[in-house]
C-alpha cells in the first residue's frame, strides 16, 4: 500500500482558501486517492476521491498532477467548522477478492481561526 505524507498541522483564517498537500511517491497504477475529514469522536467523513487530473464537488477540489505522486485538497473559503483532521488515503480499492482496507497515515490537523 502506498505510504502517504501530510503536514502534521496547518492554521488558517475564516474565508481563506486552504490547500493541503499529500505526498504518495509509491502510488500504484490502480490506486485511487481519497480524502476524509474527521471531527473528534466521530467517524471519518468522505470528502472527495480522484484518480488523476482535477476533481471538484460541492465542498472541495482535488488536484492530482500527471505523475500522481502527490495530491492537493483545496477547501474554498473555510469556516470555523472546518477545523478537523484531514486524511489522505491511497490504495488499491478493488482486488481480485474484494476491496483492500485503506490505510490511514498521520492526518493533518487543520485549525481555522476567526
Amino acid at each position: 500500500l502506498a505510504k502517504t505524507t501530510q503536514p502534521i498541522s496547518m492554521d488558517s483564517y475564516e474565508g481563506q482558501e486552504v490547500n493541503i498537500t499529500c505526498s504518495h511517491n509509491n502510488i500504484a497504477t490502480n490506486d485511487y486517492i481519497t480524502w476524509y475529514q474527521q471531527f473528534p469522536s466521530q467517524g471519518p467523513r468522505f470528502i472527495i476521491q480522484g484518480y488523476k487530473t482535477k476533481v471538484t464537488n460541492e465542498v472541495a477540489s482535488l488536484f492530482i498532477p500527471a505523475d500522481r505522486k502527490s495530491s492537493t485538497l483545496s477547501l474554498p473559503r473555510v469556516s470555523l467548522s472546518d477545523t478537523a483532521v484531514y486524511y489522505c488515503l491511497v490504495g488499491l480499492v478493488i482486488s481480485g477478492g474484494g476491496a483492500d482496507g485503506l490505510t490511514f497515515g498521520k492526518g493533518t490537523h487543520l485549525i481555522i481561526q476567526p
Partner: protein
Amino acid sequence: AAGVIQSPRHLIKEKRETATLKCYPIPRHDTVYWYQQGPGQDPQFLISFYEKMQSDKGSIPDRFSAQQFSDYHSELNMSSLELGDSALYFCASSRLLSSGNTIYFGEGSWLTVV
C-alpha cells in the same frame, strides 16, 4: 440518505470479558470494513469482507474475529478483553464499482474496558 449503522454506540466491559459490535452497511453495499482508533491515534484497519468472505486483513488481534452475514451486516467479536482494547471502533461500507470504491464510515462504537 441511509448511513452505516453501528451498535451499540457505547459499551463498557471488564477485563477478560467478551464484546460484540454490530454493523449494518448502507443498503446495496457489498463490502464491510472494521477499523480501531485508540485515543489520540489514527484509525487502524482491522479486517474487511466482500460478499460475506474475508477480503483483507490488517492488524486484527487473534482474540478478535469477525464475519459478514447473508444480509451483509457484520459483527466484530472481541474476547479476553484487555485495557488496551479501549477504543473507538468504526465500521465502514462500500459498493465495489469498476469506477472506484468510496468507503463510508459509521459513527463508531465506543468500547471501554475497565
